[in-house]
């Protein structure tokens, strides 16, 4: 029997780095989509605020939404909102009804639902 030999650490072997798991991914997406929505809210209020200054100001502000970047951002926003909603429902189901789940399956379904809403938004001629 050979005594042990020193080797380089394996790729994923860093102590403290458990394998990424679906529950972790769900929490990360939930947090990131929540931050994205929080960042959007001030923009939303600014847009609504321009109404007080007359229809022209609102129209000129809404002109920004024809910009390609803003359109992509809108799609992202709709997806983030849908994702945040379904992932939040998942947490509520787990915590209020003590649902044991197949985490990977449920999280995948939540992400698919969020993206599907985003696609519907695109198909709706946004």
């Amino acid at each position, binding site marked *: *029997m050979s005594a*042990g030999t020193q*080797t380089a650490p394996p790729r994923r*072997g860093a102590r403290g780095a*458990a394998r990424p798991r679906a529950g972790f991914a769900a*929490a990360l997406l939930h947090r990131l989509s929540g931050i994205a929505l929080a960042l959007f809210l001030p923009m939303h209020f600014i847009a609504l605020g321009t109404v007080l200054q007359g229809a022209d100001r609102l129209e000129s502000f809404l002109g920004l939404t024809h910009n390609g970047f803003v359109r992509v951002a809108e799609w992202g926003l709709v997806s983030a909102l849908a994702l945040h909603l379904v992932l939040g429902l998942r947490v509520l189901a787990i*915590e209020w009804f003590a649902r044991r*789940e197949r985490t990977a399956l449920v999280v995948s379904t939540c992400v698919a639902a969020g993206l599907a809403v985003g696609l519907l938004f695109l198909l709706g001629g946004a």
Partner: protein
Amino acid sequence: MNAPVSTASPADPTVEAAPGAPLTVRIRRDGGFQAFTVARRPAQTILDVVTEIQRAQDPTLAYRFACRVGMCGSCAMMVNGRPRWTCRTRVAAVAEDDGLTLEPLRNLPVVKDLAVDMAPFFEKWTAAHGAFEPGAAPPADFAAVAPDSPERRAVDAGIECINCGVCYAACDVVTWNPDYLGPAALNRAWTLVNDVRDRGQEGRLAAVSGDAGCQSCHTHMSCTEHCPKALAPTFAIAGLKRATARSALKRLGARHFRRPA
């Protein structure tokens, strides 16, 4: 004469090596990894592998075990990046490419090699008021607990914990916030919150709320997925979240809406 009873130990030549490629076992030691080669044997567990290495190859390897049958909760380690009881984990079920990577339990200080210091784990058990607190006159406040009452069932769901530390090692929140009480301590607190005889509820709910308490749980479900006893600390923590919220609302109501005497 008390001759040692002969048992089929992993290093015992009576357990024939099984055909097939030998296992390459990488063990985290002294900041790096050390590789060992171990023969495969029928029904071999991870604990068998570690014991074989320690007895036949490197007697300085440190690890911890006691019962070998999943009762004591002392042999948990990270096996291929996941916390597991090594005594109840078969090599055949978890080896990847004829290899195993063994590390000490995550989130706990290492004493040596695969043995970790469990002191922080048990300190949090105490911090979460994990001990039953009787009233001033225990014989007088006798309570009849129906076995099928909801409270008793909630206790039953969490009472089988043997403190192995697997959930604590699986928890990402403990990694982020080392003060976080962790799934095991909170699960224990939840069993006591449902104990109608306990007289320390107010202090316990205060101890398990806050930044290091149940509200910090992100519901990753890691503890529930990894628990070798199939307990669900996530649901226990969710129960504590409800109980602490209810108690906070009651306090608020008492402060602002109390009827004048």
